[in-house]
């Protein structure tokens, strides 16, 4: 079902939510071995946009996906080998619609494009800098016909903003920094710096 295999439960893997582009529908499962997939009828959830990651993914039937994540959104990791494709992964949370925390990843071009559009919406939103996370709804699907036949591209919209849920704790702008080093910790988006006001004093401060 869907485009990625079921990760084994109880390990480091999060339960996933999958988007089937052929059907234009969302699926997930309860946490636990051999739990059946079920359709997510209302795909509305908190998207952990500050911790969106990109990288190389290799989905193979029957085994957990192999991933090599990029050091940052601006710096691609080296291609780890054949059959790896560019993709993204992000944590979503909805107790009501997803039964909790779910990981969403995809290497499908039309899904990546939809996420790119959502990313632009999120970046442009003034609430972005507040540390709140967007509540995102898949408001519909758009049929895309090409050599692969007809697939359905999800359409995302931001329907609200919320404080970071406890289930998404451990990363992000509104979470107190952990003891981990600054190098290892996921970084929130940087804030745009406005130009200095006319006649303002120097902003730089000696460090060395």
């Amino acid at each position, binding site marked *: 079902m869907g485009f990625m295999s079921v990760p084994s439960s109880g390990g480091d893997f999060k339960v996933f939510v999958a988007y089937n582009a052929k059907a234009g529908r969302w699926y997930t499962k309860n946490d636990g071995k051999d739990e059946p997939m079920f359709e997510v009828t209302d795909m509305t959830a908190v998207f952990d946009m*500050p911790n969106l990651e990109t990288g190389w993914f290799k989905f193979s039937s029957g085994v957990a996906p192999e991933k090599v994540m990029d*050091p*940052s*959104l*601006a*710096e*691609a990791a*080296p*291609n780890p*080998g054949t059959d790896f494709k560019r993709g993204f992964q992000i944590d979503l949370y909805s107790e009501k619609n997803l039964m909790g925390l779910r990981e969403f990843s995809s290497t499908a071009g039309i899904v990546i494009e939809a996420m*790119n559009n959502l990313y632009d919406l999120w*970046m*442009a939103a003034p609430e972005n800098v507040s540390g709140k996370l967007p509540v995102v709804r898949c408001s519909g699907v758009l049929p895309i016909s090409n050599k692969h036949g007809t697939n359905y591209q999800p359409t995302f919209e931001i329907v609200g903003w919320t404080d970071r849920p406890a289930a998404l704790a451990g990363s992000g702008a509104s979470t107190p920094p952990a003891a981990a080093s*600054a*190098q290892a910790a996921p*970084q*929130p*988006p*940087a*804030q*745009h*710096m*406005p*130009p*200095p006001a006319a006649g*303002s004093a*120097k*902003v*730089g*401060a*000696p*460090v*060395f």
Partner: protein
Amino acid sequence: MTNAFERHGLDHLSASSINLFVAQPAMWAMQKLLGHKSRVGAAAHRGTAVEAGVEMGLFDPNLPLEDCQEAARARFNQLTALSADPNVEKERAGIASAVAIALGELRQYGIPGSADGTRQHRIEVELPGVPVPFIGWLDFWYPDHGIIIDLKTQGRLSSKISDPHARQGAIYHAAHGNSEIRFAYVTPQKIGIYRLEDPRTHIARVVSIARSIERFLSLSDDGAELTAALSPDLDSFYWNDPGSRAAAEEIWGLAPEAMPQA
């Protein structure tokens, strides 16, 4: 006694050099130790071209935007005249709007400082524990504001300063300790200007990388032997240049049919 850098004819380092060593050590060795240069693609030329147009508009704030855009396009056309990169047209299409967006924001900073008739400022700084200096060029320095801005063009806007860019900014900061370092990321649609936080953290990494290079160079005085001890990642875009791939074949003896195509 000369240091390992000097024994290999390297009298300085730069941000791009240490970042290349981290990302693609085999290409670093091929370029720095064997002297094989690599041609860059259309995306890099887009950056050079946009910077040319923005620089023109910043130093002459009354110059019409259209003139700056035309200068950028002309620079791009010049740089890509012989390019076989299939992305040339795509990159060309975004140049004018990137120049407009960058100038719209950066002209608010005023006119950058210039020195000795040059618009870009050369910096040279020695870091503790590194036997050769770091050399670089500042894009736009605003001494009145105490701000240095480095312009980066992108297809999609970064949400933060990347680690390689942070290392570059940390080197600039070490050279101009009283200045704040900002990176202006510009796309054909938008611009984000981010401040480099805590340069000290990144300068420590710069020194660590430089020492790794020194240790690597200390293993042998034979650059060819050092280069041959590495292996190129030919799947990476770094190796898209046919000339670099041909050089890789010469150095590492890769059969052409075994080399993945870009």
